[in-house]
C-alpha cells in the first residue's frame, strides 16, 4: 500500500481511531491493533508475502527469546544461527535471481533449478526487515536490557518482536530501527501526548517532497532511457542527471519523513534518516547525512565487527571498501549496485587517505560540497540505468554531444523549478545555521506549511511507487 493513495488514507483513519479508543487503551490492546494493521498494510497488494514476514518474525522471536534465557556461550551459538537465517532469507529472495542469471549467461550453465531461481520474486521490504532482525539479535546478545522487561512471557515477546519488525510506517523502506532504541518505547500511548505539530510538519514536508517534487521529476527523468538519451545535448543530459539526483533524494527523504511523522502520531519516535545530505562537503559527511539508519547499521553491525579503524591504516581502507561494496549490493541484486557501492567505498578511502584527520573538522568547504554532489549525482546513474554499458554510453554521450544545441523548453524549465525546491530545502538548513535568530522563520511556519499543503493538492505529479521499495 502506498502512503500517497486513497486506500492508505482510509486505512490510516481507521487504524488511528481504533488505536486511541479508550477501550483499546484500557485493555492494553494498542500493540495488537497496530500489529494487525501492519499485517494488513503489508499484505494489501500481495497477501502471500505476509507468510515470509511472519516466518521471519517467528524465527527472530524464537532466537531472541532463547538468547535472553540461555547462558552467554549458548547465546552466541543461537545468535550465529539467527544471523545466518536472516542472511539466507535475504540471499535467497534477493540474490538468487542475480546469481542464477549470471551463471546461465556468463558460464552457459542452465538447469531447472537455476531457471526456478531466476523466477523467485523479491518480497517488498525484505532488506529492511532482515536487517532489523539481525539488529535485534545482536543488540540482545550484547546487552539483555534491550527487552526492557524482566517478566516477558513468550506471547508478550512475540507481540513486541512482531511489532518491532512490522510496524507499518517503517516496514517497507525504513528507517531501519534498532531494537535497543525501539523496544523501550513500547507501552501505553495517549491521544493527549501526541506531538501534533512535529508529526504534521514532517508528514506535510514528506508528502511535498514525494508528491510534488519526486513524482513530477519522475515524469521528466523518464527520458533518461537508453538509447534515447544519446540524441540529447550535453547540457540536457546534465540537466536530466541533476533532475534524477534531486528526484531520488526527494523520493526517499519524503518517504522517511512521512514514516517518522506517522510513527509520531502513534507515539513512536523513529530515527532520523536524512539530514540535508547534499550540503555534505566530504563523502564521510555525506554518509552521515544520507540514509542515516542504514549507514549506522552498517557501521555498528559490519564495519566495527570487521575491526573498524582499530587494525591499522590498510585494514581501515579495506573495511571501508568492503562495507560500501556490501552496502551497494544491499540496495539491489545487480552488478551495477555493487559498482555503485565500490565507487563510494573508493572515494571514502581516497578522502581518508588524502585528508586524514582534517575530515573530522566541522569546517564547510564549498568546493568540497560541489565535488561531492557532482560525484554522488553521477553515481546515481547506476541506479537509474540498469546496465553498466548504458551508463558508459551516457558518459560517451556527454563528451560526444557537445555539438548538439542545448534545448531549453518548457520541460527543462519545469525540471529546474522542481529541483529548486530541493535546493531551497538545503539552503534553508544552511541559512538557519548561519544566523543565531530564526524567529521570523518560525513565525512564518504556518503559512509556509500551509502553502506546501496547498501545493500537494494542486501540484502533485502522477502517482508513483517509492524508488526504495525495490530495495
Amino acid at each position, binding site marked *: 500500500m502506498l502512503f500517497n493513495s486513497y486506500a492508505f488514507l482510509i486505512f490510516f483513519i481507521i487504524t488511528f481511531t481504533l488505536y486511541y479508543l479508550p477501550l483499546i487503551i484500557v485493555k492494553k490492546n494498542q500493540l495488537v491493533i497496530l500489529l494487525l494493521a501492519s499485517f494488513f498494510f503489508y499484505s494489501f497488494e500481495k497477501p502471500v508475502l505476509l507468510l515470509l514476514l511472519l516466518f521471519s518474525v517467528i524465527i527472530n522471536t524464537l532466537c531472541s527469546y532463547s538468547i535472553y534465557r540461555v547462558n552467554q556461550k549458548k547465546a552466541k551459538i543461537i545468535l550465529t544461527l539467527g544471523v545466518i537465517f536472516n542472511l539466507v532469507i535475504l540471499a535467497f529472495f534477493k540474490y538468487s535471481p542475480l546469481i542464477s542469471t549470471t551463471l546461465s549467461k556468463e558460464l552457459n550453465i542452465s538447469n531447472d533449478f537455476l531457471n526456478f531461481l531466476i523466477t523467485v520474486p523479491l518480497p517488498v521490504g525484505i532488506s529492511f526487515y532482515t536487517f532489523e532482525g539481525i539488529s535485534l539479535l545482536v543488540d540482545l546478545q550484547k546487552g539483555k536490557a534491550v527487552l526492557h522487561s524482566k517478566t516477558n512471557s513468550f506471547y508478550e515477546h512475540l507481540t513486541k518482536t512482531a511489532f518491532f519488525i512490522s510496524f507499518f510506517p517503517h516496514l517497507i523502506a525504513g528507517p531501519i530501527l534498532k531494537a535497543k532504541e525501539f523496544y523501550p518505547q513500547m507501552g501505553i500511548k495517549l491521544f493527549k501526548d501526541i506531538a501534533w505539530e512535529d508529526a504534521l510538519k514532517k508528514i506535510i514536508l514528506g508528502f511535498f517532497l514525494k508528491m510534488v517534487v519526486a513524482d513530477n521529476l519522475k515524469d521528466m527523468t523518464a527520458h533518461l532511457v537508453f538509447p534515447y538519451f544519446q*540524441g540529447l545535448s550535453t547540457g540536457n543530459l546534465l540537466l536530466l542527471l541533476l533532475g534524477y539526483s534531486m528526484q531520488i533524494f526527494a523520493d526517499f527523504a519524503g518517504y522517511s519523513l512521512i514514516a517518522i511523522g506517522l510513527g509520531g502520531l502513534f507515539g513512536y519516535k523513529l530515527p532520523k534518516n536524512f539530514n540535508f545530505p547534499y550540503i555534505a562537503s566530504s563523502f564521510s559527511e555525506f554518509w552521515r547525512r544520507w540514509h542515516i539508519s542504514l549507514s549506522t547499521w552498517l557501521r555498528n553491525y559490519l564495519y566495527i565487527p570487521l575491526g573498524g579503524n582499530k587494525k591499522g591504516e590498510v585494514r581501515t581502507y579495506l573495511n571501508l571498501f568492503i562495507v560500501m561494496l556490501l552496502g551497494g549490493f544491499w540496495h539491489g541484486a545487480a552488478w551495477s549496485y555493487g559498482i555503485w557501492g565500490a565507487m563510494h567505498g573508493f572515494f571514502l578511502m581516497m578522502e581518508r587517505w588524502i585528508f586524514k584527520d582534517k575530515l573530522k573538522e566541522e569546517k564547510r568547504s564549498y568546493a568540497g560540497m560541489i565535488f561531492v554532489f557532482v560525484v554522488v549525482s553521477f553515481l546515481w546513474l547506476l541506479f537509474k540505468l540498469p546496465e553498466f554499458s548504458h551508463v558508459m554510453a551516457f558518459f560517451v554521450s556527454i563528451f560526444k554531444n557537445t555539438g548538439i544545441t542545448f534545448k531549453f523548453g518548457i520541460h527543462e524549465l519545469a525540471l529546474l523549478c522542481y529541483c529548486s525546491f530541493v535546493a531551497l530545502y538545503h539552503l534553508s538548513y544552511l541559512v538557519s545555521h548561519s544566523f543565531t535568530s530564526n524567529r521570523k522563520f518560525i513565525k512564518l511556519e*504556518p503559512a509556509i506549511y500551509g502553502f506546501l499543503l496547498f*501545493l500537494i493538492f494542486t*501540484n502533485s505529479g502522477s502517482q508513483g511507487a517509492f524508488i526504495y521499495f525495490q530495495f
Partner: protein
Amino acid sequence: MKKIGFLLLFTCFFLASYNLFLYAYPLKKTVFYTNVERVEEYVYSNKKYTSVIVGSSLSGAFEGKEVFGKNHFNFYLHFTGAGTGIDAIRRSEKIPEKLFIEINYIKRPVNKVLLNYVFDEPIYNLRHYLPFLQTKNKLLPNLMDRVKAPANNTVNKKRPPEKLYNELIEIAKSEWSSIDDTILLKKHLDSIKQGIVELAARGVTIYFYEIPMDSSLNNSALIVFQRAYFTKLASDMGYKFIENDNSRDYNTGDGLHLLKEDADIYAEYFKSKLQEKPF
C-alpha cells in the same frame, strides 16, 4: 495546536482562492504534458466535440493542424493505444459525431490505471466542483506556460544522429516484426471492437486510419495483421478506412513518429482524403 489551526486556515485560504480563480478564469491549455491532463480536458471541459481522434503518440502528428475542423479534440495518449481513448469516451458519456481511430498502436492494452485515476468515484465528481483537484489545472506548469511557450514534444524537426536512428529502427523492427500470441491479440482487438460497435450504435461515424511509419515497418507482421483486421471490420460494419498514402516514403525521428515537415504533408493528405467522396 494554535499553529496547526493557522496552518489549516492558510491551506484553506490558498485552496479557496485558487478554486475561485479557476471558476472565474478557466485555464485554456494548448499543450497537455501528461495523459491524465488530456483525459481530464476531454472529460471536464464544457465543450462538446463533434470529431475526436483516438490513438497513440503517433497521432500527435495532427496536433495543432486544421484537418478536422474547429470543434475537434485530439485524444492521443502516450504509451497506450486507441483502446484507452475509446474507453475514456464511453465512460465520459461525451459522445462525438465522428471518431477517428488510429490503428498503429491499437495492440497496446487499455491503460486501466489511468482511467481508474480519472473516473473513480468519489473524486471524479468532486473534481467537477473543485477544479483545483484536476491535474490539468496544476499551478506550476500553468505558470510556466506563461513564461515559456508550450511545445508539442511528440514531433521532432530533424532526425537524431545516424547511429542512434539505426538503433531506434532496430528496436522498432523487433517490436513490429512478429506477433507474440495471435490468439491473445485477436481477443484484445475483439474487445476494442465491442467498444467501437457500441459507439457506432449511438450514432458515431467511425473512421480507421494508419499513421505512416518508416517504410521498413510498413509491411511488418504486426501492422499487416492489424490492418487486415480493421479493413475487414470496416467493410463488414460499414465503417470507413482512410487508405494509406503509398505515394511517398515518410521520414520519422525514430522509425515511428513523423518529423514535423512530414507530419504537415501527411496532414494535408489526410485532409484531402476527408474531402473526397464518400467521406
